[in-house]
């Protein structure tokens, strides 16, 4: 073997060793190519279409702010689902938790009036987190003590949350003299500011993300979560209290979703309106899976989704392509990140087999 060959090998080796990074990037690329074909079939130059998305989402200061704003709750919803997956729980209820929390923090922002600015924000965020956690906690308690499967309970709790919130904003907490179902605006003191184009909530989300990642990978608490998720029998053997873990897992998951809802309210919408948070919890599932239940990876995954969503409108304005194309792009990316086809094609025999992200119906 000559020296150059060894060098080549090392270079390839670099890619082979970093498959977990190379594959997603390649996946996004292929997804954009396939999506480009769809766009082309509509009679539009794909490059023009993609330029429309990215120039709006990244190279326009309002657009960039919106990209960050959209990314923020997605990071947290993705984290919520991730934490659940790590404990072997499939939390389909991030949506319900997020919207309950959004209302809770709005109410705290409106009806608590005598607090100084920073404290008020903290209290309002806290209210959201608590309500999100408790709403998920119901599913946790039902699972731990009554054996009710979290997939059923969180689906039911989503619908129940929608009903209750609908009532609350059309009756007791509806903005006076308003036919819209929504609350009043929160007090100035409860507003989460933007720092230039970066919303403060985004920074908060990133910090939380780092903390969760650290917690899961470096702490004893994280070891407990992971062990329960990977083998509940061994976890019991290891002296871990399963019931407690199921409940705290759900509480934490719901709290994270709740924080997403609270930041959304205090940093973007400034009030609660049922339509505001539509679909965020379900996007959280996509993001957690795209990130393969790795907390740090939820950040790029959420940025991808946030970018596509922020740029979607500009896409229609510039080219007439319907914004739904964005979902098709996401689906293809998710498929290629998760299916072994791309890795096999790129790395042949050296393709790493990625472990399952979910454990079916949890355990």
């Amino acid at each position, binding site marked *: 073997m000559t020296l150059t060959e060894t060098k080549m090998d090392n270079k390839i080796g670099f890619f082979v060793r970093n498959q977990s990074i190379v594959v997603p990037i390649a996946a996004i690329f292929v997804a954009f190519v396939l999506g480009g074909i*769809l766009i082309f079939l509509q009679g539009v130059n794909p490059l023009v279409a993609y330029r429309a998305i990215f120039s709006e989402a990244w190279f326009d200061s309002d657009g960039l702010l919106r990209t960050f704003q959209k990314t923020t709750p997605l990071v947290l919803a993705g984290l919520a689902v991730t934490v659940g997956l790590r404990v072997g729980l*499939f939390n*389909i209820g991030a949506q319900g938790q997020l919207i309950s929390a959004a209302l809770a923090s709005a109410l705290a922002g409106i009806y608590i009036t005598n607090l100084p600015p920073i404290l008020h924000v903290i209290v309002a965020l806290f209210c959201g987190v608590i309500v999100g956690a408790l709403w998920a906690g119901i599913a946790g308690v*039902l699972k731990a003590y*009554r*054996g*009710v*499967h979290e*997939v*059923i*309970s969180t*689906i*039911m*709790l989503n*619908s*129940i949350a929608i*009903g*209750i919130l*609908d*009532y609350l904003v*059309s*009756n007791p907490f509806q903005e006076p003299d308003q036919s819209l179902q929504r609350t009043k605006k929160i007090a100035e003191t409860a507003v989460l500011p933007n720092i230039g184009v970066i919303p403060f909530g985004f920074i908060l989300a990133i910090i939380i993300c780092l903390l969760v990642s650290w917690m899961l990978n470096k702490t004893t608490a994280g070891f407990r979560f992971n062990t329960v998720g990977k083998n509940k029998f061994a976890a019991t053997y290891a002296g871990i209290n399963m019931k407690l873990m199921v409940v705290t897992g759900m509480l934490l998951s719901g709290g994270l979703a709740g924080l997403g809802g609270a930041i959304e309210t205090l940093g973007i919408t400034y009030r609660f309106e049922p339509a505001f948070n539509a679909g965020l919890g379900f996007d959280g*599932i*996509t993001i957690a*899976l795209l990130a393969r239940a790795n907390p740090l990876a939820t950040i790029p995954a959420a940025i991808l989704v946030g970018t596509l969503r922020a740029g979607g409108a500009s896409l229609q304005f510039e080219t007439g392509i*319907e914004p*739904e*194309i*964005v*979902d*098709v792009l*996401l*689906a*293809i990316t*998710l*498929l290629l990140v*998760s*299916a*072994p*086809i791309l890795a096999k094609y790129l790395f042949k025999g050296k393709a790493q087999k990625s472990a*399952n*992200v*979910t*454990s*079916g*119906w949890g355990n």
Partner: protein
Amino acid sequence: MLDFIKDNRKPVITLGLVTVIAYVFYFLDEIKTTSVLVFGWGYAVPLVLAAMVGIIGERTGVVNIGIEGQMLMSAFASFFGSVITGNIYIGMLIGIAAGLIMGGFLAVAAVKWEMDQIIAGVVINIVAAGLTSFFYAPGKTLPQLVPVVSIPILSDIPLIGPVFFRNGIFALATLFIVLAVNFAIFKTRWGLRSRSVGEYPSAADAAGINVTRVRMMNVTLAGALAGCAGAFLALEAAGTFARGLTAGRGFLALAIMIFGAWNPLGALAAALFFGISTAIASQLQADEVINIPQQFVNLLPFVMTLIVLSVAVGRVRPPAAAGQPYTKEG
């Protein structure tokens, strides 16, 4: 018959109880009871069919969270298939074929590629929502109506007759599909093998059963039932297609499947329970007999489900290998 009851004690008792209660109401108010049950069964039909998809998949070891997308694609295909060909029957077949294709996709991704099954399902859901929305063309109507068929004799039974035996094709077929799936899973060779693959694939493999093939086949064929559910929604229930027509029914079906303990008859009972409580909620709203906001009345099916599950049923055990790809080393 006795064996049948013995094998399926819980669902049979539940269904029996529901029947008795229904007849009590029937004697109090014939019209209301019948119409509420018609609503309830109509609501239950797609849930039952979709739950069958989930059950067949999971009994074979493959979690199918993509039922929602499979139904949506099928609904889309059956509607536009009918519109384009001008014939609803061809449309139905196109819908079922679309279901098969979607089932086949899940089979390839989750079984052949050994992809994470939940992810494969989520991909189906996103793709289906995206594509059916992207390619939706408004302003089309069905070329003809799905005829209502009455099964002789059976349809003359009071209450049960008009509810179950006077319906469109798919709604009629659903009862028989449930019985057939129940029979197939528990009484046939195919069922025995499928269950062994879902419970303990390496044992099935060691017994000479081709795990991959059984899973591929079942997941694909189950897609046809998702096709029926989609076609039912578009052609029979709504008579049209709309974006997001399935409206979360695929997820609800998963809940129904678990509620019914992965048992076809159990799922039937669970879906009827859910459908009827939804119907009762709407009836309470219409009658205004109790003076609480409709938002709360409409929580009835969800709250009832949680209560029933936490009080009565308790922990049920999924097929042991559901969700786990079967990997053969070497």
